[in-house]
């Protein structure tokens, strides 16, 4: 039985359709992330699950029960908001216990629940403070504590980390992941940050214009994106999209990429095991080759022809050392492509360098409609 099931949900505001036939189901204990650019409908979907906004059509089931027309209070869910939304006139203790109080849980049980979540989130020393006396990270913990106290069937997180500074955000991210592993709770989590999505999710739903473009594990959406939007949205630095053309035929397809200047074009053999039916109709037509920055590597002269991938030369325009690795911009096929190399690389901007490209994880898209070809 699914913990949450959304069936053909649509939502319109006047003439604009914000959600277009959304369907998805998640299992108990699963961590689902809704991710997408602003205006994609992810927050509207979240509010629909929470019952804060009625849907125009479709059904929402929680724990096997149809809750489409139930109020937020009747849905057995808890939510952590972006602005934390703590009650300013109440202490931390009262904030955490408020939901239980509204559900007429006896005082002794409420106190127990407060103790439990305070221990869990290490906020015991803050219980008698008012929200205004807390730092951003502490408020965040209290907001999570308020949700955890009730032990609902589903937790909803609406961009919970986006108001924190970068360092704290990474810490809280790890903490949320630990919490999920420890408690095995079912979580739906909205974010626009694809790194949060990759690191936290069991499954990711990438949304755009009211559609779910792809629903899959982080590995699937990263390495096997459904279309060019997903490929470009997931991953940082973003995937490189190179204009190319397809040559050859079944068993020996080649992708031809024009390089800068008088250089011979780069002809890359397409791996046989990644061939698809769709390729045949694209021969001789423009396609878009998707290569992630880590699909490139620096030519190692000692390996010579033993090295994997196709060798090519390019001029670097920008070098960005990040510490853990070095990012290069090189000119390829009329665009700047990003290349990720090891931290020990001694390359300077303007250098002519030799690189190798690994086609085994490359993806190919139709230039026309941005759909995935192979």
């Amino acid at each position, binding site marked *: 039985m699914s913990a949450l099931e959304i069936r053909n949900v649509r939502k319109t505001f006047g003439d604009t359709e914000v959600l277009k036939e959304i369907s998805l189901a998640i299992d108990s204990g699963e961590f689902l992330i809704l991710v997408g650019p602003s205006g994609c409908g992810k927050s509207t979907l979240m509010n629909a699950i929470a019952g*804060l906004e009625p849907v125009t059509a479709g059904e929402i089931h929680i724990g096997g029960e149809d809750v489409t027309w139930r*109020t937020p*209070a009747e849905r057995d869910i*808890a*939510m952590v908001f972006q602005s934390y939304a703590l*009650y300013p006139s109440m202490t931390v203790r009262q904030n955490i216990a*408020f939901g239980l109080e509204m559900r007429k849980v006896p005082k002794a049980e409420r106190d127990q629940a407060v103790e439990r979540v305070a221990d869990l989130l290490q906020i015991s020393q803050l219980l008698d403070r008012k929200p205004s006396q807390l730092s951003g990270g502490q408020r965040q913990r209290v907001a999570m504590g308020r949700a955890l106290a009730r032990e609902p069937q589903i937790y909803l997180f609406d961009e919970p980390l986006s108001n924190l500074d970068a360092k704290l955000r990474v810490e809280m991210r790890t903490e949320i992941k630990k919490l999920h592993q420890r408690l095995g709770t079912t979580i739906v989590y909205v974010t626009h940050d694809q790194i949060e999505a990759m690191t936290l999710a069991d499954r990711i739903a990438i949304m755009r214009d009211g559609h779910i473009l792809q629903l899959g594990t982080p590995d699937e959406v990263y390495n096997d994106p459904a279309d060019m939007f997903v490929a470009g949205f997931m991953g940082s630095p973003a995937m490189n999209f190179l204009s190319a053309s397809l040559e050859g035929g079944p068993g020996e397809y080649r992708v031809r990429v024009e390089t800068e200047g008088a250089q011979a074009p780069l002809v890359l053999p397409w791996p046989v095991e990644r061939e698809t039916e769709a390729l045949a109709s694209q021969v001789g037509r423009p396609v878009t080759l998707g290569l992630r920055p880590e699909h490139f590597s620096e030519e190692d002269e000692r390996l010579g022809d033993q090295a994997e991938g196709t060798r090519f030369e390019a001029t670097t325009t920008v070098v960005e050392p990040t510490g853990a690795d070095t990012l290069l911009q090189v000119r390829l096929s009329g665009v700047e492509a990003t290349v990720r190399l090891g931290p020990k690389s001694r390359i300077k901007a303007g250098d002519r360098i030799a690189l190798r490209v690994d086609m085994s994880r490359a993806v190919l898209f139709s230039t026309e409609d941005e759909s995935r070809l192979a």
Partner: protein
Amino acid sequence: MDNVIRRRTPRARLLRAGLYALLIAAALVYLLPLVVMVLTSVKPIEEIRAGALLSLPSHFTLDPWIKAWSSACTGMRCDGLSGYFVNSIKIVVPAVAISTLVGAINGYALTKWRFRGSELVFAMLLFGCFVPFQVVLMPMARTLGWLGLASSVSGLVLVHVVYGIAFTTLFFRNYYVAVPDEMINAAKLDGAGFFRIFWRILLPVSGPIITVSVIWQFTQIWNDFLFGVAFAGFDSQPVTVALNNMVNTSTGVKEYNVDMAAAMIAALPTLVVYVLAGKYFVRGLTAGSVKG
């Protein structure tokens, strides 16, 4: 300490002295009527008749105040302002409380439970702020008669509540619009309903705007004359109407000292409210404009 850097040349100092002199003179002009009132109200009538308007009293007396309070004549009756003062309190306290509470609930509903047409409702309420008193006199008189509340304290309370709701709704609506919706959503998820959210979440953070509403309504209703004179019965006249009757009583000698004392008595409560809560009044009016 002021934190302005200014020139310290003789010419600049002279200009500054001139500026202060002008300001002090203006302040005196505004203060003078009050000074005259206070001085006159503690002088025996003989001294006033002698023509010394601004001089300090040679015989200090509180008799005019006592007379104004308990035995001055207002029309036919001669038992001072005290009864009417009590009338005013009986009108003001419920009218302020009810109009503030209704305004708060209106503002809450209009911002946190938006419904189809809620903007229109608000626009119409706002329009109510600009309806002149005189326009509603006749229809209100009919309504009060029809409700059986004509010439009663309850009737006046109703009139002031109806008239005040436009203002109090405006105050609370503008205050609550700045309260994040997420807070209300969180309370909904926690299982609180319309009134529970209002009492437990919103009202505890409404201190500044409640102060604004109370001061505004108190001043308006206490100082009201037109509704009082139009709708009050003999026994329900507010102090402003009684003051007018007392000053305009044409029998006997004109007792300026008693009139002045009566005017001071009628004006005192609004002054007291403002002095006690004025700080919060300003704070409430500017709340939300600056973060903090």
